[in-house]
């Protein structure tokens, strides 16, 4: 997994509550058996004016100039500002894959849906929960200042605004450790293989009916 340490990037506002994972990446792109290449279809139904298809040449599609992602001032944005319950709906990891592939490294919102939140950490994306008022003030700052950049420092758990003021944020210690070191958590879990085997043997003894798939 990609490491995350300190990241500075242009913030892009997506001013909409309950952005679901169908919004982030529509279903037709889920037919891919790869985990890359979803960036060009991030927010597909809003970013383009026509219906996207997995094999389409996206460079020839009509662009929705009103959608925030297509506004020149947010070109190259890597910090996404969002509203409540971001990432709700389907468990598709294609959503963080698409965000990552496009170039987003940080998502800031007042709240996230649980599965999406979890999936971000598996892909080197840092989702940050801030209180609604602070998020609101960031939305206002971004609107007022073109090229508005935020610096997100994971080791010290601080976001720095262009004026130097900072915002503290919380992050789970285990997830922080994995992000900082780009750790593959399967490898970490397998360090406990003995504990898993011991548990499994006791559980099989106690509840043998869970260990058969053929009646």
């Amino acid at each position: 997994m990609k490491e995350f340490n300190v990241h500075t990037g242009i913030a892009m506002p997506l001013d909409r509550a309950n952005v679901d994972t169908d919004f982030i990446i529509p279903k037709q792109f889920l037919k891919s058996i790869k985990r890359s290449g979803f960036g060009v279809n991030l927010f597909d139904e809003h970013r383009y004016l026509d219906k996207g298809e997995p094999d389409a040449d996206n460079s020839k599609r009509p662009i929705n100039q009103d959608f925030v992602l297509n506004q020149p001032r947010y070109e190259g944005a890597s910090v996404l500002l969002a509203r409540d319950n971001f990432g709700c709906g389907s468990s598709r990891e294609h959503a963080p894959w698409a965000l990552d592939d496009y170039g987003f490294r940080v998502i800031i919102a007042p709240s996230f849906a649980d599965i999406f939140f979890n999936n971000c950490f598996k892909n080197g994306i840092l989702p940050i929960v801030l209180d609604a008022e602070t998020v609101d003030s960031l939305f206002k700052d971004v609107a007022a200042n073109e090229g508005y950049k935020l610096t997100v420092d994971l080791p010290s758990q601080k976001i720095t605004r262009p004026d130097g003021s900072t915002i503290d944020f919380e992050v789970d210690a285990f997830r922080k450790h994995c992000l900082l070191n780009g750790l593959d958590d399967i490898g970490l879990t397998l360090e406990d293989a003995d504990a898993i085997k011991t548990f499994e043997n006791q559980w099989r003894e106690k509840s043998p009916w869970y260990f058969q798939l053929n009646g």
Partner: protein
Amino acid sequence: MAGKTLYDKLWDSHLVKQRDDGTALIYIDRQLIHEVTSPQAFEGLRLAKRKPWRADANLATPDHNIPTTKAERSRGLEGIMDPVSRIQVKTLDDNCKSFGITELDMNDIRQGIVHVVGPEQGATLPGMTIVCGDSHTSTHGALGALAHGIGTSEVEHVMATQCLIQRKMKNMLVRVDGNLNPGVTAKDIVLAIIGEIGTAGGTGYTIEFGGDAIQSLSIEGRMTVCNMAIEAGARAGLIGVDETTIDYMRGRPFAPQGEMFDKAAEAWRDLVSDADAEFDRVVVIDAADIIPQVTWGTSPEMVAPVTGEVPDPDAETNAGKAENIRQALKYMGLTPKTAIRDIELQYVFIGSCTNSRIEDLRAAAAVVKGHKVAANIELAMVVPGSGLVKKQAEEEGLDKIFLEAGLEWREPGCSMCLAMNADQLPMGKHCASTSNRNFEGRQGFGGRTHLVSPAMAAAAAIHGRFVDVRDMLLEKAATH
């Protein structure tokens, strides 16, 4: 010390290791697999040269991409017209073969929507921990199992280690007291709950559903309720085990049999919250207050009783909420204060992991029997949840009732719930759907979804707009 909730019990019984940082290793008894969220996980195993920890803990079936027309299905894999879908389904077949995982493939009569197949086969058992790369895994909580959706990285993690790294959720109890009125179903209960607590109301919680109205539901009705726990933000929904649960499990192909079943059943009877268990949040709803529900917007919480109307954003005092209503009404092509009963429909979809089981089909058939689909309905389709549901429905003659009324009778799969196959809701069309999500574009690019119960969808098919199915049932009772 307070007693334990059902969630506490399931968590404790699967705890492999509690780590100092607050995370825990939780043992997973069953992983259900489908074609969309598994290829990258299998690829990950291959790249890291890992094997499944316990191949027999996994059960696979393709569902999302599967065509539902007889013409395509009769030709098996080669019959899938979309080449990208065909590759994905074939990849599942190939991966299951090479990793030694049992698959009910698209030609197997047991194939179907993974959340219909698991319980039907007894691959889902009370007291299990169950995961699947699909958010509607919450369905299986209806049997007293701790079940939730995961992303593809975690699918790979469970394949490789039989565990998940988790943090314990908080406990919420949603109690539905009293009795439902006739014509009001499990779907209406869960839509009313989501309307009450909101789509993020259950975030961070495991929701246990309890109360008389829940306990009196069949297992299939309980599955409908737990299925949509995720639509209230909770990854897992739960219902305590009772004799209804145990009777449902008896004789299922993958369930224990004979003496082993009796032993298991004895253990399962303990899978209820203790009387003195404490919940972090309790929500109480009176069943008698629930009226058949219809969503009018683009989030399941945007729901109203069929007797109600579309809201007016100008009457909403919270600016953010007002803006959400405006966005939704624009997408849905609806004007404020329109009566729900005046919404004209063009499509009807009866199916999905929420409502495609035999009782759902019976409820819909009872409503359409002897009627014809309204002229303004361009397509009304019934998609059974599995090959076995389809077979049973045909044995009961339900297919004929649907066909005579003018509905299409399809082959099993996810179909127009998420429209990954050819079953898509066209731009601008309104659909009465028994599925679970009314998100923008969910059923097709530009499509407009209204979530309802199977009986309400059937009534809508006959009238071409929403009607209160309770009135139709009353008329039927009067004429018979």
